[in-house]
């Protein structure tokens, strides 16, 4: 039986902009199964980043619930949310957001130092294809390499869920494909759930589950019976 690691129920998030209330999320519900590769697809402003931030414990909803392995994270204190991010979640950002003054390896170690069951750094670096660039600083690396470091940093903590916010958004096609391949490899090697948000519909082809969003609502959730390898994606 498929083990549900993440359950989102009737999630809503409103922002107050002066006198206007903006509904960033409206009654969103979804499940994520252990080891699943999920792509959340939607145009800019559809609420996908807000959803990711709430799932990742970086933001709180206006209403609704998020459960992680039956733990109710929307009721958690700041301290518990920090521990949740530390031990259960890995983040990959569109603009990598590496620490400029740390080398590639040190960036990964920074995250690994935080948790008790971290994965061996060298192994993670190898798995993202950065074995030979460990001692380079971010400024000495290409965008693709920097994103690999960001993935290694997220994976090194051995998180149960890897949340990726437009991981290929700042990259060219070929580098983007390589990054997607790395994400899929990581997903297969470490058996963690990967959630990628993107506006690029082509990426959905490699997902096990595709969630489509528009104007803060989920418009469709579909299971992809035959996901294709990242190398075969084109856009």
């Amino acid at each position, binding site marked *: 039986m498929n083990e549900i690691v993440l359950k989102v129920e009737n999630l809503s998030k409103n922002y107050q902009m002066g006198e206007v209330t903006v509904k960033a999320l409206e009654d969103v519900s979804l499940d994520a199964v252990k080891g699943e590769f999920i792509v959340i697809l939607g145009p800019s402003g559809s609420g996908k980043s807000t959803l990711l931030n709430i799932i990742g414990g970086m933001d709180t909803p206006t209403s609704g619930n998020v459960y992680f392995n039956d733990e109710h994270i929307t009721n958690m204190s700041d301290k518990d949310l*920090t521990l949740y991010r530390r031990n259960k979640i890995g983040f990959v950002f569109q603009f990598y957001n590496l620490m400029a003054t740390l080398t590639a390896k040190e960036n990964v170690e920074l995250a690994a130092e935080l948790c008790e069951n971290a994965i061996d750094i060298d192994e993670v670096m190898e798995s993202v294809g950065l074995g030979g660039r460990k001692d380079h600083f971010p400024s000495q690396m290409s965008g693709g390499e920097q994103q690999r470091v960001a993935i290694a940093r997220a994976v090194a903590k051995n998180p149960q869920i890897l949340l990726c916010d437009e991981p290929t958004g700042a990259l060219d096609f070929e580098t983007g494909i390589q990054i997607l391949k790395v994400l899929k490899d990581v997903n297969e090697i470490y058996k963690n759930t990967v959630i990628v948000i993107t506006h690029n519909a082509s990426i959905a082809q490699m997902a096990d589950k595709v969630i489509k969003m528009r104007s803060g609502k989920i418009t469709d959730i579909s299971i992809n019976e035959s996901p294709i390898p990242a190398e075969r994606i084109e856009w």
Partner: protein
Amino acid sequence: MKKLDKRLFRMIKNTKGQFIAVLAIIITGIFVFTAVNNSAKNLNDSINDYYIETNFADIFVKGSSLPEKLEKQLPGTNDIIDAEARIVFDTKFITDDKDENVNVRVISVDKYENKINKLFMKTGKRILDEKDAILIEQFAVARNINVGDEIKIKINGRQTSFNVSGIATSSEYAYMMENEQTMLPNPENFGVIYLEEDYLRKVYSSRGNFNEILLSVNDDDNIEKIADQLEDNLDEYGVSRVIKKSDQLSNNMLSQEISGLEMMSQSIPVVFLAFAGIMLASMLSRIVKKDRTSIGVLKALGFTDGEIVVHYLKYAAIVGITGGLTGSIFGTALSGVMTSYYLVFFSIPMLTVKVYYYRILISVVLSLLFCIISGFLGVRGIVRINPAESMKPESPKKGKRLLVENIKFFWNHIPFSWKMVIRNIFREKKKFVFIGAAVAITCGMMIMTIWMIDIIDVMFNRHYSEFSKVQYNISFDSFKDESVLSEFAEAVKVDDMEGRIELPFEIENGRYSKIVNVIGLNEDTVFYGFRDMKNNKVQVPSQGILLSSNLANSLNANVGDVILLNNFVSDDEAFVTVKGIINQTLGINGYMSIDYLNEQFLDKRIINGVYINSDEDVPNKLDDMKNINVQSQNDMKLAFEEFTAVTAMSMGFMVVFSGLLGFVIVYSMTLMSINERTLEFSSLRVMGFSKKEIFNMLIRENMIMTVIGIISGIPVGLWLVKYLGDAFTTDIYTMKEPVNPKSIFISIILTIIFIILAQLMTYAKIHKLDFMQALKNRIS
């Protein structure tokens, strides 16, 4: 090493300019604090040890005929523990150079050992025979006299030779001034010689009596009370003055120096640490602002707010510990140099330079606490950073029109680049207020320093050229009839000559009282140029008294007040009207007509000294006269010139420290500005602005604040001058001189030089910046 700590050290490396700048200010603050405070402590401890070792007297009683029996009668009464009588007189020291005027104070001492004011032997033997003399060390060193040498002095008008059997120091002459009027030690021309008591009683004293008694008391708190009682009880022995330990000349000078040092150690470092604190807080808050996304990432990775705050606070802690440690180590080292520097003025054989480890620890802890608190104020914004929000670019600040833009005539007529400058200043008000404040303090401290250099010069020059026009001041051992003046006129070809009286009085005005010397002068005296506080000429009144401004202040007396003068010699008292308050920069005195003074307290036509102006070598011409003491104004001027050369060095330090403050703050704040505005500058470069034009924009921003800072710095400087003037005005100095416009001008120029230097340093940074790289850089 933890990766966050590694990041911290690289962050320090990347901000090394600002790091060094804030460190320099902390080091300077802690350095001054430790150096000055340790010197004060060294000096205080050493002098206290010296006083205990030599049993320094608590009370000095001066009289004309004090019998030996008092030595036995006084102990046991009035809480007095011990008493020791002695003979003290000033006389001429005979040198090979006939043109030289050297005075010595002869003091009788016990053949074996004194009970009070014991001598601290440096070389030779303490036991004295009849023809032996012990010389005070400062005088022996200055005149290159050694044990075994023969010296000649005049006793009772006769030249008498002594064998130098020992060289010693005395706690009574740690600061060896001849009297209140001489102001500075001049060991080549004034010294102290100790001779055997029985011998002096035979050859000098009248009926074997003494003219001074030293007393030790049980409780220091009772000194004042005992001194008052002694004045009454010893009346019959012709007591002329009872001096408390706190008023004793050398001790008074030392105490003033120590309290001056303590005041300095508490005020200057506070200014430096306050600026360092503001700078550190501002620097860290800007680093945090710049690291907003990184902080968001750290939070997303699972670091707690506390861990991230501590990470940035470590920056402040490193500044605090490094600054505290470096400042206190250098300060401790300098305190050694500073304490030794005091040996130029103070002779303290037990002067010990100690390393106070606990003070280093206190400095480090203080500096650390200070930096942590300042740092916390800077980094507390970390808690407010939302990790989700931090990933997005910060929304631009709300733009709004400035008030000045409503002045259409002005706003529409200034070029665009100036509009940007003005808007930038208002956009970062706190930063510019800080720069302005730093420039103001720099300018203020410059004004204070330049004023101090000026005032020392003004004090001495005015006193010895405008106020006192006395070339030679001759004092007699006793009162003489005015007819004695003819003897002087015969011996010397005088330009001007006047007899004078100088006597100690206790002056009372209600509950205020003060013991000072009152000088009796001719009403039309040519030896003094008295001026009131408004610089109007003042004549010696035929009746009444003139008071120096510091005396008027201590007595809380004004013109027209009637004050009570109590004479120790005749024990007469009289009420006298204050006829004027005069501006006197050195010393504290009252001045009366000699006839009025005689009429009120003494006999007619008597004097105890004479003023002479002459082109001749007066000391040499008066060589044969008995029981006189000649003081030359020229010698005092030479001593002063030596003194100013030594003080010039410390003033130079003050100028550098003041300038450093302005330099460092302007440099580091501009550097911060450049780092934060690289994107803005890059856009300007793309639009076609040259590096020079961008630099000019920064210069204009800083120059506006420099001008505002300098304008506000002038009142700051004037306030500092008033504060310092009040703090340093004592019985000996009156530092009430207004600031000269030229001093303000020099201070402004010096401030501008330091600010320009800071600006030039930042130009190198602008030149090196890769603006194009900044535009495409997305690494946090």
